[in-house]
């Protein structure tokens, strides 16, 4: 395969192997012998995109069809982009190195709001009109999915259709329909109309929005007779029988996560009130340990990876965790394959397990108390008590760990100064806990790093109506925490406030926000999630020039009866449940997790999962 980018250019850019493919298990097909060419577009750089589990799954899922060739497309890094523009080289796919503007579909996965300018930039680099309405029959169909697609509105004008839910369920039907339509000489328009038969497809142009004078939505109505009022997310019902690839793309260069990925379950029983993933992925659906052990064996065999990572929103909640962990250890410790366990709750079992798998590499342990006081943890329904945190740390310290990372959020609803000081106090108690150990058991000084991110209210959470803190409030709060810290073993860091503000605007944006995104892209914004490339001033300029008031989206409290931009989408969790949760939050009442007691969120409607255990 000849590289799309000539050598003399590749030699001048950073990490040229980002663009040359040829990875282990890359799918090779003759593009002339397939009916459908699908570009799986990840709107970020190669190393990030290649670490994404959804890409690994859908790549093989789509390629298992003989009639379809799914190829990968990543955002070129700025150095190459500049050369591509200078030399008129359009955006190409990794596999065949061909121009993606000739593909049938381009599917973008939306994992974080800060990648939206990259979506536009990639379309533009490909030579495809950005606005859906300006695209013609010869342009590819642009589809978006992923967790950010649950509020599709900020990208509505650029996207032909949104797929809401898990890809394995409907893509076969969609591609079948496309093929039939194409063979029968049907147009793109006709295909989109036929897509209206599916519950989980949202086609923005079949809906009209009107606004009140104050900027709120006045009405949101279908303009096509087949367009449904509510678009319902779709989920895989049986995780043991659903397709899961037997192999993984194994990159030839270093990427962020480069290991066998085992997905234990989807969804989360916890219901932390700030966490969008905890609501939009409901209900919890698990794989059995048996299925996972089989998948692990195949994946290790076909990849040659030296590490297996267990992926889920909360690994300790996996009902067969011990069985799985012991099974994996038994199977793979002889083969020099190690285990990595993110999202673990610290208890005696998990520590013992970590002893076994990590041997002496006692790197650092991470806890996420999220809030500094029990009161505020109750508000956000983070069911982790101070006693549990301190007990976990004490266990870890006596086991030889000396570094602890703590994650907090600032700007949570109802937060007071006491809650902020609590961040420092809890962190310092952890330091003190270490010094309760006898001297001979303390090999070196303890290091505690507390970091706080700025709370961003997200759609489909009980806090979707809440005002995000302003820039100044966040800064003030970070200072309050910092001032409270006295111990030298404790370090405090806080995340970029500007980025969180922008994320807040887009996360709850409506269709009007598209103008600002478009303008920001025109002004040169891209890779906004990358600190060194984020151009806050340009974004502010874009808001000003397009007459979009960012504070209207980020810092305004909504009333329960306001039509929210994502109200036409259902993730299974009812709005009434979210309202109840918000009311309970204000009263500092906690909600039990799904295994303790059903709280009737609505996700039972899918007919499977933890709701029926």
């Amino acid at each position, binding site marked *: 395969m000849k590289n799309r980018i000539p050598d003399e250019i590749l*030699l001048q850019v950073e990490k*040229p192997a980002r663009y040359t493919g*040829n990875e*282990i298990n890359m799918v090779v097909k003759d593009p002339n012998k397939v009916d459908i060419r699908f570009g799986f577009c990840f709107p970020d750089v190669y190393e990030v995109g290649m670490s994404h589990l959804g890409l690994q799954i859908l790549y093989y899922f789509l390629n298992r069809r003989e009639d379809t060739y799914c190829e990968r497309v990543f955002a070129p890094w700025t150095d190459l982009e500049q050369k591509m523009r200078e030399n008129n080289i359009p955006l190409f796919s990794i596999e065949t190195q061909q121009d993606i503007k000739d593909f049938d579909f381009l599917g973008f996965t939306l994992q974080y709001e800060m990648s939206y300018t990259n979506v536009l930039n990639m379309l533009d680099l490909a030579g495809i009109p950005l606005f859906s309405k300006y695209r013609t029959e010869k342009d590819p169909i642009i589809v978006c999915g992923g967790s950010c697609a649950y509020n599709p509105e900020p990208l509505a004008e650029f996207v032909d259709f949104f797929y809401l839910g898990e890809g394995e369920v409907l893509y076969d039907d969609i591609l079948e329909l496309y093929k039939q339509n194409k063979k029968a000489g049907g147009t793109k328009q006709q295909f989109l109309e036929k897509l209206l038969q599916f519950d989980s497809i949202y086609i923005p142009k079949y809906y009209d929005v009107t606004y009140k004078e104050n900027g709120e939505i006045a009405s949101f109505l279908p303009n096509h007779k087949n367009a449904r009022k509510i678009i319902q997310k779709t989920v895989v019902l049986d995780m043991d029988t659903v397709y899961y690839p037997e192999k993984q793309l194994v990159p030839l260069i270093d990427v962020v996560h480069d290991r066998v990925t085992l997905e234990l379950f989807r969804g989360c029983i916890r219901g932390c009130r700030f966490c969008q993933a905890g609501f939009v992925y409901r209900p919890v659906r698990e794989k059995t340990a048996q299925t996972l052990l089989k998948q692990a064996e195949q994946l290790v065999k076909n990849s040659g990876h030296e590490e297996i990572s267990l992926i889920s929103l909360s690994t300790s909640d996996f009902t067969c965790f011990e069985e799985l962990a012991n099974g994996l250890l038994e199977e793979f410790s002889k083969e*020099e394959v190690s285990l990595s366990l993110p999202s673990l709750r610290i208890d005696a079992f998990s520590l013992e397990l970590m002893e076994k798998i990590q041997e002496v590499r006692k790197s650092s342990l991470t806890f996420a108390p999220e809030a500094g006081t029990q009161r505020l943890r109750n508000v956000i329904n983070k069911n982790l008590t101070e006693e549990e945190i301190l007990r976990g740390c004490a266990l870890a310290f006596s086991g030889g760990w000396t570094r602890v990372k703590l994650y907090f959020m600032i700007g949570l609803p109802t937060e007071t100064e006491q809650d902020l000081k609590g961040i420092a106090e809890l962190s310092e108690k952890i330091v003190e806990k270490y010094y309760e150990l006898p001297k001979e058991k303390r090999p070196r000084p303890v290091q505690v790093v507390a970091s706080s991110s700025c709370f961003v209210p997200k759609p489909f959470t009980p806090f979707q109506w809440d005002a995000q803190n302003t820039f100044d409030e966040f800064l003030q709060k970070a200072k309050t925490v910092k001032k409270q810290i006295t111990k030298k073993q404790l370090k405090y860091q806080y995340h970029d406030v500007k980025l969180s503000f922008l994320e807040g605007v887009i996360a709850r944006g409506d269709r009007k926000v598209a103008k600002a995104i478009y303008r920001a892209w025109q002004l040169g914004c891209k890779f906004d999630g990358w600190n060194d490339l984020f151009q806050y001033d340009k974004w502010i300029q874009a808001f000003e020039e397009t007459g979009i008031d960012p504070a209207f989206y980020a810092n305004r409290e909504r009333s329960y009866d306001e039509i929210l931009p994502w109200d036409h989408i259902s993730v299974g969790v009812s709005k009434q449940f979210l309202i109840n949760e918000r009311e309970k939050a204000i009263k500092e009442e906690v909600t039990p997790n799904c295994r303790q007691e059903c709280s009737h969120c609505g996700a039972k409607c899918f007919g499977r999962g933890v709701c029926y255990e």
Partner: protein
Amino acid sequence: MVQNVLEGVFVMNEQKQIDYSQKGYTKPKEHFIYRVKFTKGEEVKFIGHLDIMRLFQRAIKRAKLPVAYSQGFNPHQLLSFANPLTLGTTSEGEYGDFEMAEKIEPAFVMNELNKTLPKGVKVLDSVLITQKAQSAMASIDGAKYIVYADKKLTKELLEKNINEFLAQKEIFVMKKTKNNEKITDIRKDIFDMKNISDEREIKIYLYLAAGSRRNLKPEPVIKSFYEYLGLEFEKYYMKYHRLDLMRKEEGKGWLALGEEIGVRSIGGKYE
């Protein structure tokens, strides 16, 4: 790092007889070292040295070869690779020494790896080292290259000037070191330089000093030749291809890294 371990094994094999019957010693398992010669083709020429190492680690795992691991808390495969290739350069003469915990047919190592290596990386030869030998990296003394020159250099120009260029007693170039640049004479490190152009391409053969003692890359030679001819040297338009890595042995002269150090068959059943 990997290399040190490897040399350690050699030292152990060739001298100090440790009395393992004494308390506190466990006899280390015998390891078998295979010197593997492989290509780095167009498809992988932008994969760097460390990434090539990881690529082989994973290929060895997929091929289920009985590779030996280091001892300790963080065991790693005992592999070592010779002379890193500049990013963008292709090669048909790369070498690695792979330690196996079992004695297997050298051809088995080659064939099983070739079933699973990515395009562009192909094992050409595999030798079980039976002679006293230095590690692949430590034994290098020279490297052979073909340089594909850009259109500015014609066959005639090349033919006319190459001998004159080589007839110079000294050829000075700026060599970058870690902290600064210094003027170095590279003439003594050019063992040979020939015009091997054919109908289609302008090609120069180079035989240069390489290894830990003296090392010369092809680029400064060609750059200096262009300057000698008064031609503009455009760095990114040159193509380099490594043909082989060579070592010098007392009484034998120049040998390729995999020559005369071991056997290609141990007479096992494997073909």
